């Protein structure tokens, strides 16, 4: 399962539903594209006070954190699959 967390729109504001819908349509995304105003959810996983975008967080079954504020390799992904 992939989830996109979008922190800001082009005007550095919280993304609206129409922003999210446009993004999903432009990129053909059928997975959840979610607004994360002020990067509030993302901030839970940051390793420092700065956000380098894009960044990824990987959870395995049971919502257990495997990777935070980094990137997931194919072996990471395979290891997280149930």
């Amino acid at each position, binding site marked *: 399962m992939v*989830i996109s967390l979008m922190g800001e729109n082009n005007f550095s504001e919280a993304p609206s539903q129409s922003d999210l819908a446009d993004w999903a349509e432009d990129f053909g995304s059928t997975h959840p*594209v*979610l607004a994360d105003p002020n990067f509030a959810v993302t901030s839970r996983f940051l390793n420092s006070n700065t956000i380098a975008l894009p960044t990824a967080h990987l959870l395995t079954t049971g919502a257990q954190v495997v990777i935070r504020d980094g990137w997931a390799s194919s072996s990471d992904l395979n290891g997280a699959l149930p």
Partner: protein
Amino acid sequence: MPRSLRHACLALLLLAASGCDQYSRDQGSSRGDDDSDSVPQWVDSDGDGLSDEEESALGTDADEVDSDGDGWDDGDEVDSSTDPTDDDDHPYSLGWGIDPCREDIDSTGNQVGQVTTDFELLSQTGELVRLYDFCGRAVLMVTAAFW
């Protein structure tokens, strides 16, 4: 007629009468069959895929396809692990599956190895999406911005 033959004929008559009595009782049931005494009846009055007995246990209306009026049939809600009595809880419109474990997750923190806290965020469909709905699978979350 020999006595033994008379007894045999009497036994046959009693057996036939017993069979007629069984047939009469079956005719009176809603969906009778030959095994009605051993197989429970399965009745789905509203045709939503749940038996009336299941609907009684769930607290849904056995005569209403969509008991909570949220646009999703009761049977579809049960199949999707959502609550057919709560109009705020229903399957996602784009078909993202919901895992039954979602009510059994207890957060322990956001460090590696811990169970992260739940969230509920606005999606491109206008629905609120809850992280724990996907607790039965791996989830890759990618943070980005439009700019």
